[in-house]
């Protein structure tokens, strides 16, 4: 039975693997093959029994947790930013696509619109009008070509006959912006000459601008100058050290980490954001815990009526998807029209600038997080309180104690220690509470002189902005901060495990 199942799954996986290999994914096919091998061994060998239960989970974990982690650490050691987006190979291939007008071949051209919307390109040599060349049907979309395509071949056609299709006037070509697309393409004549659009009226023969030398340098065939890649800078440079063309990704060692520590433009905002992140997490945990514990104690009071209704209503903020509540609060705290400020104004109280004042924005984030966070604490505390034996209260009541004293002297010391791991986990969660800050303030208001940094940014949103905001993306630096972040939160988790180690039997 088991053997049949394993055989079936293996066959299906091998088929997938074959498809991947067929479509050119050598590496993905190889990786899959290794996985299939491991899987087959694990599910057939009696010695690997425990791994049968672990294998599927660990594969997914490796792919989507461990791989991204390693990838991020790797990127943090490279120079990879808006000026260095391409790999070395891609940068090199851009050079090889550059051409210049050479020789004296010059051609008139005509575009012929076909019934299915595609076009035929017809060239006629100026020197020898009887020589004509025709392209395969082209998909010409108005505007520049999205990707650079390899030169399309043209074939020579016999004298006399007219190719099918309706010829376009020059005005039509310019009005429909077809020339933009045509300009980005190159064509190859049967004898191997490259031709490209020159101006609007004609095609001219072209030649590759750069020749790759065996030592990795490139020679400019027009003026004879030589550029070579500078792996340290991530640019091609000429003899005078001037940069030529686009930058490429390159290994940078610890440069990004040093930048965090030493570059005042990064270091200043980084430390301010770090302090705010700590403050935010600590206050969120403390506030949520205090309110949650208070409510749990109240609801634990047996003589109180409607306890179940209260509990149900109080859990609501936890039950509603957080994305929705955060966006709702964004509306409520709107500085001019929001309900909160309207209410405060109606009471003739001071209406804070929740959006433009840094401390107003921070207060808003903390208040919203309190609203979102207390129900979880309340639930956990309720569970804890139920494990406290009621006899100890009877004993202290005989001694004439009051409930407040009872709470601080008896209940809290009893339930606090087992709650510590949960508090640390909550701290770590808030440390990386991306959704809250990103959706509520997006990090704003901007920090003065802090570049992309905002006053309410947490490290995680700051890093996200560094990596993904349109201007000045810097994947290398963002990955370095992400690695540091992981070290901090990982240490917290490790401490948490050490604290809880006594009660986990391994």
């Amino acid at each position, binding site marked *: 039975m088991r053997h049949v199942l394993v055989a079936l799954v293996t066959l299906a996986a091998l088929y997938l693997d074959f498809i991947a290999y067929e479509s050119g994914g050598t590496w993905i096919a190889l990786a899959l093959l290794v996985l299939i091998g491991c899987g087959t061994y694990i599910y057939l060998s009696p010695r690997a029994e*425990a791994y049968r239960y672990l294998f599927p989970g660990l594969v997914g974990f490796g792919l989507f947790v461990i791989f991204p982690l390693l990838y991020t650490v790797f990127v943090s050691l490279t120079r990879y930013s808006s000026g260095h987006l391409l790999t070395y190979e891609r940068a090199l291939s851009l050079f090889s696509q550059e051409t210049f007008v050479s020789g004296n071949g010059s051609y008139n051209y005509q575009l012929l619109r076909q019934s299915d919307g595609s076009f035929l390109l017809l060239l006629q040599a100026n020197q020898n009008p009887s020589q004509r060349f025709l392209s395969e049907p082209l998909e010409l979309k108005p505007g520049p070509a999205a990707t650079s395509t390899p030169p399309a071949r043209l074939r020579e056609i016999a004298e006399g006959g007219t190719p099918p299709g309706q010829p376009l006037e020059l005005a039509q070509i310019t009005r429909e912006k077809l020339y933009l697309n045509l300009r980005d393409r190159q064509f190859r004549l049967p004898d191997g000459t490259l031709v490209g659009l020159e101006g609007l009226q004609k095609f001219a023969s072209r030649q590759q601008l750069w020749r790759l030398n065996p030592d990795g340098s490139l020679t400019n065939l027009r003026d004879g100058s030589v550029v070579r890649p500078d792996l340290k800078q991530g640019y091609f440079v000429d003899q005078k050290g001037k940069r030529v063309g686009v930058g490429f990704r390159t290994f940078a060692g610890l440069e990004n980490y040093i930048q965090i520590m030493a570059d005042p433009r990064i270091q200043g905002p980084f430390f301010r954001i770090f302090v705010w992140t700590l403050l935010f997490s600590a206050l969120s945990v403390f506030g949520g815990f205090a309110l949650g514990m208070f409510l749990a104690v109240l609801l634990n009071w047996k003589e109180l009526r409607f306890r179940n209704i209260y509990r149900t209503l109080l859990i609501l903020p936890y039950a509603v998807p957080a994305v929705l509540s955060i966006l709702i609060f964004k509306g409520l705290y709107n500085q001019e029209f*929001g*309900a909160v400020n309207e209410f405060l104004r109606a009471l003739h109280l001071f209406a804070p600038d929740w959006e433009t004042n840094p401390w107003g924005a921070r207060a808003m984030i903390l208040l919203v997080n309190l609203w979102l966070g207390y129900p979880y604490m309340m639930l956990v505390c*309720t*569970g804890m309180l139920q494990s406290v034996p009621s006899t100890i209260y009877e004993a202290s009541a005989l001694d004439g104690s009051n409930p407040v004293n009872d709470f601080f002297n008896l209940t809290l010391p009893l339930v606090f220690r087992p709650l510590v791991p949960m508090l640390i986990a909550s701290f770590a969660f808030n440390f990386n509470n991306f*959704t809250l800050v990103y959706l509520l303030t997006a990090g704003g208001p901007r920090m003065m002189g802090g570049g992309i940094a905002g006053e309410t940014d947490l490290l995680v949103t700051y890093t996200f902005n560094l990596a993904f905001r349109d201007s000045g993306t810097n994947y290398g630096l963002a990955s370095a901060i*992400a690695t540091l972040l992981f070290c901090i939160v*990982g240490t917290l988790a490790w401490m948490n*495990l050490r604290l809880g180690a006594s009660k986990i039997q391994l």
Partner: protein
Amino acid sequence: MKPRQRFKLGKVLAHVCLISIVVLVLIPFLMVTIASLRKGQFPPSALWLNPDQLSLEHWKFVLGIPYRELVNAATGETRMIQASPSPLLWLWNSIVVSSCSSLGIILLSGSAAYAFARMPFKFRGSVLRGLLILQMFPAVLSLVAYYVLLDYIGEHFRFIGLNTISGLVAIYLAGISVNIWMIKGYFDTVPASMEESARIDGASRFQTFVRILLPISAPIFAVVFILSFIYTMSEYPVASVVLQTSDTWTLAVGANSFLYEQEKLWGRFSALAVLAGVPITVIFLLCQKFLVSGMTSGGVKE
């Protein structure tokens, strides 16, 4: 008499306290409901609604029903409006994503937790701890890697690449380590003696796992399912990067798309929020008892 009076005063104070907090909790929900019924795009701020402000346009939009909107009050010009794709599709996508990933998470973390709880193997403790620590790497910061990875996989297996729901589910499935810990914590409280006697009677390991341990542990699986469901339902950053066209969006991405920087469509957002929030909230409240016991027995336990 005095302690009795103090007792009564305490009760009144407690009720006042609880009621005021409950009011603070409920007001935002009331405001959203009203904003969804109000004509025009107003952020949730009103607690009452004049009858002349009442309009069902946002609900029609969200439910994908075509309706006429007045474009120019002077000329009386109107235009037909119908959402495309209908926001109901986003709700459906969300439900598919959340159900598939929660189900998958249960299967993966349940079987792994079984190995950790019942079987001896090398490095058991280190693997278990390693899983938890590695999971601390925030998913948001893995986005570049997710993008590269899904783009690459998608080149060869179209059905799991970028902009597919299955690709998103695959990423969510990796979030198993906390759940492994919770389920293992529960397995540890179940005495192994029953399974051992079944083994003596000739049952295989897999049989004891499926026939004995799983039925006993149904409550913890319910808890993990609901918690994963809520988490994936609310997840925004990863979904917004993986899902690029509006026909694959989940609710979180779609809801946020109503609130652009330039034009905030509060009415539509509110209607969608109510529509999506109500069923999830009801399910959660129904399963409340389960959840409380599960969270306190699995995660934090003396």
